[in-house]
């Protein structure tokens, strides 16, 4: 039955693969912070435990141990040994605890914002991140590719100026560019605000003033990501475009007397496919770069959340954020994969004919 619908088969195949990747990601997310073999609770207790009575300190420590899943727990109570001390859980058990917590959406409790739950902090920050990153990456990719295709088709003067310019743009690290933008457009010429998602004295609401403030604060972060992204895409697309221009089918299209728009459409559609693949590959990097930009601008998204978490050794927070970022990237990749499947008949045909090499 599945053979009849190659697209469906393709989607399911990709979904399965992404699920596998997700599991690996969760495992990595769990393992890596524990590489250093340091007990986060000790570090935290070092800070939080000062000035507490021994009994209070012990209780607090046990609470953290439990929350971290570092001790054996049965029926919600800590399992103790003969001396009444909590028994440390093995790594496997820790992982089990972790999975259990995750599956109910409990990513732990944040330290710095105690007793706020990690998931709540993320819920607040996530919309900001998505609002900033989604349009930026989308537009950057689309416009960068269009410009690149134009440069490939027209060549000449446009290309001579455009190409080095785009290359230079793509060389900027995201945060460097962000800093430069802030410096010029916020300090030197104070057009735009340099920090935050909205003005400090405003409270999020559905008022016009609020949205206006949000808009102002949106501009610089948007451009610092968008321009670099577009530059990078343009470079790639230009190369692809130049390559496709020399292909036989473009020559044939011209020989047949097809309209210029049609030929451009052929060119774009075919050069876009490797770019889509490239998008799938670099999504991870783009998101990372955008996150750093958030940090520069103190934009209240996941970037800032991670930054403050790192600065405060807030392990649950760090872990929770990275897990969420990974999930977002996986979803985005999956979406792009589906799109590739739709747009490239060769992919679908490849599945029909079978793995013929």
């Amino acid at each position: 039955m599945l053979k009849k619908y190659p697209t469906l088969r393709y989607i399911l195949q990709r979904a399965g693969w992404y699920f596998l990747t997700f599991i690996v990601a969760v495992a990595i997310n769990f393992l890596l912070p524990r590489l250093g073999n340091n007990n986060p609770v000790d570090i935290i207790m070092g800070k939080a435990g000062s000035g507490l009575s021994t009994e209070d300190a012990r209780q607090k420590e046990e609470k953290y141990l439990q929350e971290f899943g570092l001790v054996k727990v049965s029926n919600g109570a800590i399992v103790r040994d003969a001396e009444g001390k909590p028994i440390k859980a093995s790594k496997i058990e820790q992982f089990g605890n972790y999975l259990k917590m995750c599956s109910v959406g409990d990513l732990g409790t944040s330290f710095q914002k105690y007793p706020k739950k990690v998931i709540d902090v993320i819920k607040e920050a996530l919309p900001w991140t998505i609002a900033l990153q989604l349009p930026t990456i989308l537009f950057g990719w689309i416009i960068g590719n269009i410009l690149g295709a134009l440069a490939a088709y027209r060549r000449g003067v446009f290309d001579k100026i455009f190409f080095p310019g785009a290359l230079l743009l793509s060389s900027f690290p995201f945060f460097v560019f962000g800093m430069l933008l802030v410096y010029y457009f916020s300090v030197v010429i104070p057009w735009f605000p340099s920090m935050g998602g909205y003005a400090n004295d405003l409270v999020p609401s559905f008022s016009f003033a609020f949205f206006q403030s949000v808009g102002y604060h949106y501009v610089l972060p948007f451009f610092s990501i968008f321009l670099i992204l577009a530059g990078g895409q343009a470079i790639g697309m230009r190369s692809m475009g130049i390559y496709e221009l020399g292909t036989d089918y473009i020559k044939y299209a011209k020989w047949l007397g097809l309209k210029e728009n049609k030929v451009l459409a052929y060119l774009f559609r075919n050069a876009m496919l490797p770019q889509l693949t490239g998008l799938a590959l670099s999504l991870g990097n783009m998101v990372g770069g955008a996150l750093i930009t958030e940090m520069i601008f103190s934009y209240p998204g996941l970037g800032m959340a991670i930054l403050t978490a790192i600065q405060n050794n807030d392990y649950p927070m760090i872990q929770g954020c990275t897990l969420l970022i990974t999930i977002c990237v996986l979803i985005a990749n999956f979406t792009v994969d589906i799109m590739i499947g739709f747009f490239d008949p060769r992919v679908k045909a490849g599945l029909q004919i079978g793995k013929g090499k």
Partner: protein
Amino acid sequence: MFVIGIALFFGTILIALVGPVIFTITMERVGPQYAPPGGRYFLGLNDLGQDYISLLIRGLQSSLYVGFLAGIIATTLGTLIGIYGGFKGGWVDDFLNMVTNLFIVIPSFVILILISSSFKEGRSLTLIGIIIGMTAWTWSARSVRAQSSALKSKDHIALAKMNGANTLKVLLVHILPYLFSYVFMVFILQVASGILSEAAISMIGLGPLDTVSLGTILNQAKNTGALGDGVWWAFIPASVIITVIVFALYLINTSMEGVFNPRLRK
């Protein structure tokens, strides 16, 4: 174009190597906080009164070191995996492909953060270089694999195999020379990426704890609010240097591409 790229790049290396000779490097406090550029210290002082010239040169050395280290690791790892998979084909290839894809999709940035944050002490340049290298190899593996599997079907390779050369020998003697130029280009991009990654990871405070790097300079600048106070010398020189290095490397890479794919030239 190539010339400009090479010139720029070697210029920065020159500064890194020769700089300490020309300017005396000192990490001591030599003046007031954020003293503006002037006279001897023509790049100003940072928030601890340290000389930016010294800081930048040191930082440049560090960043270059990390970049190269990461680049070497990533390129070697990626090339080995890519060549082996591409050449062998079959299930070996499929398996390596799957692993590579896995690591591509999971953001390396995330892995970097996770690993770095778990090393609360002992974060040295070398460690960071190693970590970056070990997360950045996926891209090289992909590219090299594509090239290698294309080469596999070339005639002289088949000849060598027929003559009974074992896989390793064939790989080293026949394929590698062909791929060398390609691998070199990959290496350049990996170094650039390594420098950028180091700057990024230092920017957010997960950088080396014992030395200065271009990224840590920027981190300092941000944390002490130099940005908002208009203390441009705190971050612009470092930014410029990073961008220039990366730009130079990209130029080199692009011009090499032009050599191998003549249509890209005029």
